[in-house]
């Protein structure tokens, strides 16, 4: 599970530089939450492109994550990037006054999609491609909102587990308080990832590593000392969230169908 952080940073900055140019952009935009993932992503982007080519949007809903907003502003200041704060409370409140709910999940998803919608609008205004900040842990267990925080132009960190992102953050010398604070999706007050998932990231990542990277059968993972109920729960999470990692299935009629056998690379002619 160890990473060579220096080399990972080099590969990821190359990736950002090369793939955004192939997509026809020279600037990137990303949502800054003040959390670990978006902070590390912003540091990588600045290393790859320079401060002038990175735009940050801080999009608070009420005071759900005031500490995060403070950290996001601090990161933007340290990196000297252009940034803007957009309070999304009016449009979220307007929607839920018409369609009330008590479900934090529904509210959280709506908030994540509002942020996505603003990012795409600013992406077009600013001619900047959206950097996704989902990590491998989130992608695998589906801890993200489809068409919300999972939506992006390119994703530099999707093959790094949360604990590896932290290791990379340490190497990139991001602020200590961001490195060590409790991870939160920030979708409702005092939300904490690890409480919600029911596992500490260290444990979660080591189980995922055995299942996904080493392709160990469940029995083997359990024999290695990891708790059976946790392992089985994680497998269920992976299964249930496969739809978030794919384009939706298309009903096949013809001999050549988008998503089945019409197969071209992203970097076509680039």
């Amino acid at each position, binding site marked *: 599970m160890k*990473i060579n952080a220096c*080399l990972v940073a080099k590969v990821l900055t190359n990736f950002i530089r090369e793939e955004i140019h192939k997509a026809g952009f020279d600037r990137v935009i990303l949502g800054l939450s003040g959390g670990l993932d978006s902070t590390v992503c912003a540091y990588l982007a600045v290393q790859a492109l320079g401060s002038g080519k990175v735009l940050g949007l801080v999009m608070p809903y009420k005071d759900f994550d005031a500490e995060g907003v403070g950290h996001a502003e601090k990161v933007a200041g340290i990196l000297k990037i252009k940034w803007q704060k957009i309070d999304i409370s009016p449009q979220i409140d307007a929607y839920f006054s018409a369609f009330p709910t008590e479900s934090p999940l529904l509210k959280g998803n709506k908030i994540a999609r509002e942020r996505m919608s603003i990012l795409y609008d600013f992406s077009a205004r600013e001619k900047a491609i959206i950097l996704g900040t989902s990590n491998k842990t989130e992608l695998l267990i589906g801890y993200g909102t489809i068409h919300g925080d999972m939506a992006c132009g390119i994703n530099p960190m999707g093959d790094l587990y949360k604990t590896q992102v932290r290791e990379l953050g340490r190497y990139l010398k991001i602020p200590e308080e961001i490195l060590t604070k409790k991870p939160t999706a920030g979708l409702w007050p005092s939300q904490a990832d690890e409480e919600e998932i029911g596992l500490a990231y260290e444990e979660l990542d080591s189980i995922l590593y055995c299942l996904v990277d080493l392709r160990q059968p469940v029995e083997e993972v359990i024999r290695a000392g990891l708790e059976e109920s946790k392992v089985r729960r994680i497998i269920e999470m992976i299964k249930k969230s496969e739809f978030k990692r794919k384009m939706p299935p298309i009903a096949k009629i013809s001999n050549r169908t988008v998503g089945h056998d019409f197969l*071209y690379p992203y970097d076509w002619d680039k």
Partner: protein
Amino acid sequence: MKVALAQISSVLGNVDKNLKRHLELIDQAINQKADLIIFPELSLTGYTLKDLVAEVALNPGGSSVFQELLEASKKIDLVFGLVEERESNPGIFYNSAVYLSEGEISHIHQKVFLPTSGMFEEGRFFGSGREFRSFKTRFGPVGLMVCRDLLHYCSSYCLLADGAQLLITISAAPGRDLSDPESQGFETSRMWELMGEAISFFSSSVVIYCNRVGIEDGATFAGGSFIYSPLGKLIVKLPYLEEAFVVQEIDLDEVRRARKSWPFKRDDRPEVIWHSLDRIIRKEDED
């Protein structure tokens, strides 16, 4: 002899742009008095082609792109990679390595071992070659391999048995695994280097490996091209992850010296291998 290694990236699916780049580097190699220039696997097309395979295929007999490279080969020998579709075999595409010299095609090797698992899907788009054959060049007998061919040790063995003294592998190997804190490159690069070193020693041949760099659809090609001497000594190694161009002097007499000290080639018994394989294959048929 002087060998130029062009550790480059390609434009995916754009043969014209890649041809232009090839011709520029060929000029650069000629200016530096190189005798041979080597490009990576699928250098004329890029690697992650998928359905583009059919659209970028070239017929060695008839394409104008090939004519331009044949013309260039009057001044310097060339090895490059392309999607090959022969007139005699239309609709079947090969991942091929070509050796051109003095305006003629010296040899075309169609990749035999097509990786088709995990991130690789070559078997879905390409036909697989059916032989390893060494061929004459002005520098002596040469054997060509494409990428994964080198990792199957039967490939270089066949070429050795067929007399090759210079083994050239063109490659588009993506890097995987960045877990070693001390390493300068991907862990998979280590695998290629070990294989190159071992094969150079046991085949008493010069082993040249030209890998590409750049990123396609998120995968990073690792670079780290190298040349090993027939005594297993590293002669040159190019950087990981970055484009590089180097012209390297190679002492071909080293093959003779190596084979005098370590007569693996003299003592080789291809007929024993033939008989053993014959028995093994028959046995498999019976099982």
